[in-house]
C-alpha cells in the first residue's frame, strides 16, 4: 500500500526513435516538471483532485503537448479544447467540449463538477458557463504555436492532393498520427 501515487501522460502515438536529442530532452523536461507539480501537492498531503488538476494545468500551459497552448488546429484553422475530471471518491465528474477561450479547460471542468448540478457542457454553452465563473480567458490565438500551424498547413495541402493519403500521414514530423487526439 502506497501512501500516494501519481501518473501522467502527454499523448500517445507514432513517436519516431529518431527524435532529435534536443527535442527529446524538452519532452523529458516537460514531463519531469509536471511530475514535480503533482509530487509537491501529494507529498504535502494535498488531494488527488488538486494533484491531477495542477498537473494537467501545467501540461496545458506547455506548448509541447496537444492541450491548452500548443493545441492542434481544426479544419477551420481554430482551436477547440475538451477536458474532463472525475473524483473517484464521490463519482463526481465535470466535462467540457468545444471550448475556445478558456486558458485552462481542466479548471473549468472541475468547476462544472463542484459548482454545477450538471456534468457536461458543450460549445457555446460551455463558453457561456465559463462566463459565469472566474476562470482565466484568452483569445483563441493564445493556443497558437508555429509548429502546430505548420503541421496543420501540411495537413491541408495533403488533403487537397489526396484526402485518403492525408489520413495516413504523420503530421507532427516525428509525433502523432492524424487520427489521434
Amino acid at each position, binding site marked *: 500500500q502506497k501512501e500516494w501515487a501519481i501518473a501522467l501522460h*502527454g499523448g500517445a502515438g507514432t513517436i519516431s526513435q529518431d527524435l532529435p536529442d534536443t527535442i527529446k530532452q524538452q519532452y523529458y523536461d516537460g514531463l519531469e516538471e509536471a511530475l514535480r507539480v503533482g509530487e509537491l501537492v501529494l507529498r504535502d498531503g494535498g488531494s488527488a483532485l488538486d494533484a491531477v488538476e495542477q498537473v494537467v494545468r501545467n501540461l496545458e500551459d506547455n506548448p509541447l503537448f496537444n492541450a491548452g497552448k500548443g493545441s492542434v488546429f*481544426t479544419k477551420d484553422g481554430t482551436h477547440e479544447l475538451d477536458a474532463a475530471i472525475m473524483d*473517484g471518491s464521490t463519482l463526481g465528474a465535470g466535462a467540457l467540449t468545444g471550448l475556445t477561450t478558456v486558458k485552462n479547460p481542466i479548471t473549468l471542468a472541475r468547476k462544472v463538477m463542484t459548482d454545477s448540478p450538471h456534468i457536461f457542457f458543450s460549445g457555446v454553452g460551455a463558453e457561456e458557463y465559463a462566463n459565469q465563473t472566474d476562470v482565466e480567458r484568452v483569445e483563441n490565438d493564445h493556443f497558437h504555436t508555429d509548429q502546430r500551424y505548420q503541421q496543420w498547413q501540411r495537413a491541408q495541402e495533403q488533403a487537397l492532393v489526396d484526402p485518403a493519403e492525408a489520413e495516413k500521414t504523420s503530421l507532427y514530423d516525428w509525433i502523432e498520427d492524424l*487520427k489521434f487526439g
Partner: protein
Amino acid sequence: TVGAVALDSDGKLAAATSTGGMTNKQFGRVGDVPIIGSGTFANHVAAISATGWGEQIMRNVSANTIANYMEFNDATLEQAIQFVLSQRLNPGDAGFIGVDRNGNLSMQMNTAGMFRASLDSDGNRVVMIWQDE
C-alpha cells in the same frame, strides 16, 4: 492529449484529461477525452486517463472497462489495461495511465510510444517516451 491520475494520502482517487483534439478535425467532432467512462474515469477501484484514437477509445468505453474488469474479475490494474489494449482495441490505437486504490501504477500503450511519467511515495520514479525504453 494530456492526462493525470492520482491516489492521495486519504485513499482517494482522481483522474483528469485535457486535449486540443485531432489535427484538422471537422466541425463539432468530439473524441474520448470529455466522455466520462471512455477517456476519463475514476471510482473506488481505480483512476484512468486515456490517449489515442478517440473513436476507438469511445467504442470500447475503455477507461470504465478497465475499472470494471478489475472489480469483476479480481484483476490487477496491469492486467485490466492489458486486456483492453490487446482484446478490445487494435494495435496502434491507444495508451492508458492508471492508479489503483493501493497506489499501484500502470502506464501501457499499444502505440510506438506515449509521453509518460509516474512517481509514488516510495520514491519509484519513471519518465519515458517509447515502449521499449
